[in-house]
């Protein structure tokens, strides 16, 4: 058995040195014969390298068989976890594209080092993949710059534009910002200058070429003689030699000092070399990153935030729980002091008395509020309101005018002034205040009150002199009032069994020729658009304030 193994390794090394397709190489037949005669499982059980394991899998299985796919998949997966062997990559190149597609490409989806190594191997082997497949690879996992460069080797040169277009469309529909960034970066790489050959991922290492040692010398395998090293160097492929030549002095020095034949390196040395390599390969990107970060920190003062705010985050501020000089109202931006709050309290207590129409008590509290805060417009308004109700018209007028002097747009102060003026029979002043109030806001209740005021003071014709928009607004309000009244009357009519319409004393409206009723109820039946209000009679259709019936009755 030992002899068979030795023979296998010797023949395998010969085969790997030969050129041409595997099946056409002279040693291929001999190896196939050897595997046929011996048990492949016993050889595979203690294969020294992945290259030999891969070769054994190829020799012991038939093309396109499931067994071959399974064995190749297993070997390639192991290869993606181990230091790479140059001879293994060379052997991979001999595999059919079908075998590589089913065994190597699925490893690219892995998010750990297997994915990085798989894409590197695929690039080294020279696989090309369909343009539509790239978006799926790019969304499968996070991508390092090195991996993206290696992935770009899998794009056929003639299909670069197509891949870019597909990725541009995919980016437009992509929800994830990370994936969009991957698409964009990959497109930039595609149209940029690609390196001459794929880049070795940071997580991968190249194993020194394997030299078969007979079992009796196995102890000396870890401490190779100088002659062995020379022999190994001679076995390096042209690609590898050029790769070493292309490297910087740092990595070249590392290569020279690495003990050849011993794949195990001290962890610190490996980490340091990886770091140096990372810095070396991303020198420009790191410098740009450093520059941008510095500018950002200087511009935003975030460094200060890091130093100070991070310490206080989650802790109450120094002045927590202390009574401030003032607060800022979050809604009105007013300055709120303790006096402000005290005045507010008196004001609200006055409002409580108003709920029970206790004007005198309320007035005292509103005046208290005003003493604390002389600019309390609400308190001034309420003082005017209370004084109006206790018939102190002069006092009401003073307070309300003061409120308006502080805030000319204060609502309802003019209405109160109009009421006070009306109560003193100063109709002209009342009209002025009604008009001012309606100019401030089109309040239906104010409009109705104004209309009633004009009606009660016999100044129906004065409506014509009003500005068109106020007149129109009053008409609308009154039409709603009339409609509401009609509905109310209809309901009451239904309940009270009213006399038939024919039996009533009916008249015809001279404007719209609609039916009128001159009993206790005023109007029941009008043509659409004509309108009468029982308190203030006005035809909506013609706008005539007088409402005389065709037979001379004035309702």
């Amino acid at each position, binding site marked *: 058995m030992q002899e068979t193994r030795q023979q296998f390794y010797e023949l395998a090394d010969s085969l790997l040195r030969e050129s041409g397709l595997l099946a056409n190489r002279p040693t291929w037949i001999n190896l196939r014969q050897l595997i046929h005669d011996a048990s492949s499982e016993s050889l595979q059980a203690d294969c020294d390298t992945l290259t030999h394991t891969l070769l054994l899998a190829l020799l012991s299985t038939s093309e396109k068989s499931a067994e071959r796919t399974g064995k190749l998949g297993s070997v390639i997966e192991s290869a993606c976890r181990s230091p790479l062997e140059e001879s293994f990559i060379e052997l991979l190149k001999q595999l059919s594209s079908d075998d590589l597609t089913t065994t190597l490409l699925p490893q690219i989806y892995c998010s750990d080092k297997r994915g990085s190594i798989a894409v590197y191997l695929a690039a080294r082997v020279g696989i090309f993949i369909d343009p539509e497949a790239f978006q799926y690879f790019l969304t499968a996992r996070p991508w390092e710059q090195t991996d993206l460069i290696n992935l770009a080797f899998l794009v056929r040169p003639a299909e670069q534009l197509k891949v870019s277009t597909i990725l541009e469309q995919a980016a437009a529909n992509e929800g994830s910002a990370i994936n969009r960034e991957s698409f964009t970066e990959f497109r930039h790489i595609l149209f940029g200058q690609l390196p001459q050959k794929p880049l070795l991922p940071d997580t991968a290492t190249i194993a020194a070429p394997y030299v078969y040692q007979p079992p009796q010398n196995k102890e000396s395998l870890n401490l190779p003689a100088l002659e062995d090293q020379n022999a190994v160097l001679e076995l390096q492929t042209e690609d590898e030699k050029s790769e070493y030549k292309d490297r910087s002095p740092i990595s070249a020095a590392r290569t020279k000092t690495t003990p050849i034949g011993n794949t195990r390196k001290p962890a610190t040395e490996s980490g340091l070399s990886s770091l140096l390599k990372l810095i070396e390969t991303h020198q420009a990107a790191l410098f740009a990153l450093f520059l941008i970060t510095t500018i950002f920190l200087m511009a935003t003062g975030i460094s200060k935030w890091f130093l100070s705010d991070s310490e206080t985050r989650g802790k109450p501020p120094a002045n927590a729980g202390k009574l401030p000089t003032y607060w800022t109202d979050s809604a009105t931006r007013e300055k709120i002091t303790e006096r402000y709050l005290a005045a507010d309290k008196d004001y609200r207590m006055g409002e*409580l008395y108003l709920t029970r129409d206790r004007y005198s008590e309320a007035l005292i509290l509103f005046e208290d509020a005003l003493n604390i805060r002389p600019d309390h417009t609400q308190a001034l308004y309420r003082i005017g309101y209370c004084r109006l109700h206790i018939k102190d018209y002069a006092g009401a007028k003073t307070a309300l005018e003061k409120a308006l002097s502080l805030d000319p747009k204060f609502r309802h102060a003019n209405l109160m002034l109009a009421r006070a003026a009306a109560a003193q029979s100063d109709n002209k002043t009342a009209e002025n205040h009604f008009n001012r109030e309606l100019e401030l806001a089109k309040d239906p209740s104010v409009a109705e009150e104004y209309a009633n005021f004009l009606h009660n003071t016999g100044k129906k014709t004065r409506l014509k002199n009003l500005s068109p928009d106020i007149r129109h607004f009053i008409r609308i309000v009154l039409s709603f009032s009339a409609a509401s009244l009609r509905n109310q009357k209809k309901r009451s009519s239904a309940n009270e069994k009213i006399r038939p319409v024919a039996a009533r004393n009916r008249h015809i409206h001279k404007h719209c020729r609609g039916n009128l009723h001159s009993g206790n109820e005023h109007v029941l039946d009008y043509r659409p658009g004509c309108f009468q209000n029982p308190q203030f009679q006005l035809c909506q259709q013609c706008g005539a304030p007088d409402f005389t019936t065709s037979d001379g009755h004035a309702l």
Partner: protein
Amino acid sequence: MAMPFEDIVEVPPPGIALYDAPAGTFFGPFINTSGSSSGEKFITQGNMPEFYSYLAQHDFRYSLSVSNVSFGDGDEIKSVGILVSWIENNKNMMYRLYVYVPSL
């Protein structure tokens, strides 16, 4: 949140902190998912660390301004001003909300 009419009393500024609120105040406990006191949760660093940090960082507090008038025969009204204050960008801010609470 329910509270007996008599218990609505003045809480002068700067008020009571919403975080680490003492038991028996509006926010102590903050939530109770069960029917018993075992499910009570206070806004503490241990119970709700992120919420606690936010409230503490801005020193969220509440105070109550209560005006009370009694009209006799048990007819009583309280006007309650709920004043929520906090510190934002080194500025003392306040949000005010007023409600009337009748006794009947």
